[in-house]
């Protein structure tokens, strides 16, 4: 087969179709297809990594009206994020194995994985936009159908909020394409050809349109308020995909489109964007401190974590960019693990308030161990993955705009102020009279296996980050200022 990249997004889509057809046994199809997907992604990544001269894979298809063409490409950034998608997809399938859900659930997850893969592969902006919007549909159903009590409100809010962001992005893309046509007479949506200088005076407008579209997805303060609701109501696996991969689309869009097309504008915007990112780290942490619901707390902590990614990426230094990109993966693993653990708690006790539990360290030691481990990774304990990304992002930010790094370091300090009290309330404090701790049984073998894999990766990245950083370096090298 000489279309490896097409295979990558078609396999999960095929999986979705098979799941839908299988009916009651859909989860077996989901498992098989997510394994094939992960295997295929690893293989493509390995081939591109091991073969000299193949560090960027390309597939160019036919050109249609208005210059729309089927054009896929994968460098180490794309492949890294696709691997993350495939990995988390597999984790989600394994973690949801015992859920009593219809075939649609599994089909939605496979379709989501397919659309996400497409986003990371597409180099034609038309297809990029199509895949981008396509991710919304399965996620809308995942939240709206299999979420908790207030799911419809959260699903609609999620959809409308991020959709309005995407519309801004679409307008910006249309402006970009038509300006290129006006100046050169050529219709194209090819990212490699398009040139922002054709925009003339409209460039800042288009740049900010793109940035707003991406910022909603990231989500950057003040466009974040859809996230806590969506996370809180989504099923655990939905939260994992949402936090683990969907939020990364925003940063990916910046890295892939906004920064390369508008190098000087993005540099001028650094005080504003970087300021918002640095503020996000503090604001997210403060909001997380005020939460009484575990999932809401983790959702707000995501806002803070993505702030670190942005600080690194926007600094446009090599350590900031590699650190910020690695932080995308780190956040996927750590926050993914935390959401899964809260999901396991919720499956058992149908509660997720901080004060609904207590004494779980004695009753469910594995749960406590994994939760504690992931919490430490999340607050940036050196030796675990979070520290690497945070340290390098902050180091990058410091060399560009020191005040941002100061704020970021304050954000690191504050992270412990929400994570540890929450851990103590759930696992250490004695169980109160209304506590549902008695319903919480410890993790079974399957759940433990999932978490061993996640925590093992956190430790691996934390202890030996060099190969992981080196993986992303070629892709971001061109962005270093």
């Amino acid at each position, binding site marked *: 087969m000489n279309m490896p990249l097409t295979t990558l997004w078609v396999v999960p889509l095929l999986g979705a179709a098979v799941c839908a057809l299988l009916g009651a046994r859909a989860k077996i199809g989901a498992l098989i297809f997510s394994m094939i997907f992960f295997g295929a992604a690893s293989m493509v990544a390995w081939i591109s990594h091991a073969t000299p001269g193949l560090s960027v894979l390309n597939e160019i298809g036919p050109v249609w009206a208005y210059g729309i063409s089927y054009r896929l490409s994968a460098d180490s950034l794309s492949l890294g994020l696709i691997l993350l998608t495939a990995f988390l997809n597999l984790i989600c399938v394994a973690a949801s194995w015992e859920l009593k859900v219809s075939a649609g659930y599994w089909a939605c997850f496979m379709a989501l994985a397919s659309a996400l893969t497409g986003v990371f592969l597409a180099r034609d902006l038309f297809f990029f936009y199509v895949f981008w919007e396509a991710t919304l549909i399965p996620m809308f159903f995942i939240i709206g159908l299999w979420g908790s009590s207030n799911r419809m409100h959260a699903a609609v*809010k999620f959809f409308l*909020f991020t959709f309005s962001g995407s519309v801004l992005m679409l307008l910006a893309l249309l402006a970009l394409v038509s300006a290129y046509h006006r100046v050169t007479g050529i219709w194209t949506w090819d990212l490699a050809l398009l040139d922002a200088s054709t925009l003339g005076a409209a460039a800042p407008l288009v740049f900010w349109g793109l940035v707003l579209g991406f910022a909603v997805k990231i989500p950057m303060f*003040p466009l974040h*308020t859809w996230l806590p609701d969506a996370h809180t109501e989504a099923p655990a696996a939905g939260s994992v995909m949402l936090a683990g991969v969907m939020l990364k689309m925003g940063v990916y869009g910046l890295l892939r489109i906004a920064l390369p097309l508008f190098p000087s504008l993005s540099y001028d915007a650094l005080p504003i964007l970087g300021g918002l990112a640095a503020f996000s780290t503090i*604001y997210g942490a*403060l*909001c*997380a*401190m*005020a*939460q009484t619901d575990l999932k809401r707390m983790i959702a*707000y902590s995501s806002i803070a974590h993505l702030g670190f990614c942005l600080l690194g990426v926007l600094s446009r*230094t*090599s*350590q900031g*960019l*590699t*650190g910020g990109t690695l932080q995308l993966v780190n956040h996927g693993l750590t926050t993914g693990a935390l959401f899964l653990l809260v999901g396991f708690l919720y499956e058992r006790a149908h509660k997720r308030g901080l004060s609904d539990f207590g*004494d779980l*360290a004695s009753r469910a030691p594995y749960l406590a161990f994994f939760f504690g481990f992931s919490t*430490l990774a999340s607050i940036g*304990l*050196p*030796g675990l993955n979070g*520290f*690497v990304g945070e*340290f*390098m992002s*902050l*180091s990058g930010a*410091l*060399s560009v705009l*020191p005040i941002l*790094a*100061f704020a970021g*370091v*304050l954000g*690191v*300090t504050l992270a*412990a*102020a*929400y994570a*540890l*009290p929450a851990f*103590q309330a759930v*696992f*250490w*404090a*004695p169980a109160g009279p209304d506590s549902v701790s008695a319903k919480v049984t410890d993790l079974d073998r399957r759940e433990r296996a999932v978490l061993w894999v996640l925590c093992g990766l956190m430790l691996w990245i934390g202890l*030996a*980050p*060099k190969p992981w*950083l*080196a993986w992303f*370096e070629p892709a971001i090298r061109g962005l*270093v200022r």
Partner: protein
Amino acid sequence: MTPAQVPLAAWLLYAAPVTAILFGFFVMRRVKPEWTHLPILVSCMIVTASAFWLAADVYTGHSFDLNLFRWAAAGTFGVDFGLRVDGPGVAVLAMVSFVGSLIHLYAAGYMKGDPGFSRFFLVFHLFFLAMIGLLTANNYVQLYLFWELVGVASYLLVGFWFHKESARKAALKAFMTNRVGDFGLLLAVLLIVLQFKVTHFHLLYLKAASGATFDLLPLIGLCLVWAACAKSAQFPLYFWLPDAMEGPTPTSALMHAATMVTAGVFLLVRSWPLISLVEGLPHLVAWIGGITALGAAIIAGTKKDLKRILAYSTVSHLGLMMLALGLDQVGVALFHLIVHGFFKAALFLCAGNIAHALHQPTANVDDVGGLQKSMRLTYLSFVLAALSLAGVFPFGGFFSKDAILDAAWHHGGPLAALGMLVAAGSAFYIFRMLFLTFYGARPEQKQAPHAHEAEPILGIPVLFLALGAALAGLLKEPIQRFVVIGMRGLPSGLPELNLVLNLPGEPLLPHFNWVVADLGTLMVALGAFAAWRLTMSDPGFDWRWRGGFAESMFESDFGYKIFVDWLVRCVSWIARFTGRVLDKAWWDGLIESTNDIVRGAGAALASSAQGRVNDYLWWMVAGTALLLGKVLR
């Protein structure tokens, strides 16, 4: 030097504890949890032997500093993982491993039968490993790694008995305060990367000695001092340490003597070539140390809980180390750090033995009295360690404290007076503790029903530590040599550093000064006499004076704790306001209301579209007219 030439002992420093912890976690904890301590005790022995082996190596001039592998890299930015085995490092390492191992042995007896025995030993050893890593790190990022690991391990140990609310609170307080300090260290490390492009101590010393000026150095120095203040419990961040005694007693002993609070002083020792370049910063360190030492000594004299007295005593002694550092006496600070490790570990374990004998988690001066007869071995150990702490000739503490007093004396002014007052204060609180606990009993004290001597596994390690405390004065010369070796740089020798560090050729410790020694001893005698007067000749005094204004002042550390609590409340109020009001009610509320706004606008506009053809025609005419006007103009 290549990794192949690194002595086996250096590898074992890491390999033994890591193996023991992994084996304990994956095998022993499942198979035979009550034996988890066995591999760990073996690891302690290996580490101690290795540490002494390396110390001997360094003593004979074979120190080394080596990058083992590159930990992280991006572009020109890189962080290495390496080993630095030099004078100050191994001097502290030898003490930490020896004292730490004895505390491990003690813990095997003390924690026996606790349901969390296995968990305790694994985290305890992790704590130990983290400190070893901190002492042998060769760059700031690596040091930060182990610095944080020390913090996490201490959090888990202080909160070990998590069913107690006080333990949970103390653990959180300890971790958060340290986190506030880590703000300084992380910032300092980032600034060092920015300013110097490297984080290796060795290369930084070279750069510092080059005589160039570095704009960011004052800020870096300040951040480092801030970090050290948190870890080594100095004013204004000292308040977490006295509460941290909520952990099991071996934890307190390890934390106070070897693995935690000394890290801050060690950080400053490592950074001294940088800090000493900053105008006025050493002076600030000296003042922080002096004020903390005196304040904590005064408060220690008023506390009733045995471990709390010792905790404030630790704060006070760390202050003395800071004072020595601030007066540019790196060697003296290290010397006192090592001697302090011995006597403080011994004292904590004595307090542990007393609590153990009373079958309580902790003991109070109200609980006990007259233990001299029933607990002979503990009494003997306590006396030896207490005399060393008070600085009575010829016990170990005399030499190190005398050197600090001497340095302060030479500096003159208020710091000299401060040093003398601390000497009197230390003697007062430790003799008060000695008299109240071991002599008596007084009518106010509950009679300890059947206080009995501890088992050998609890008694013997304590005796060894106490003997070490008594004899530590003999270490004066070797430590001086270690510091000279370490501070001269590695391995080629950096003569320039002597100038930077203000180190004269050989003698690092001040010459023995009769005036200071006599005056210091006089102060100790005064303190001891005051303690005797108030406890022995007036046995009820300690119970009579309590309850007044003075008590409330001491309880709140002269109001400082109230201030800290207020700060914490402010931060959590800000967080609650941001999260619940600003974000949820106002901002998200506004966004959610767009739904209503749209619906309202729709309803308002609907009134103009009620299906009357006349209206529509008029609108059409108006619109066309407008367009025509625009086009024709």
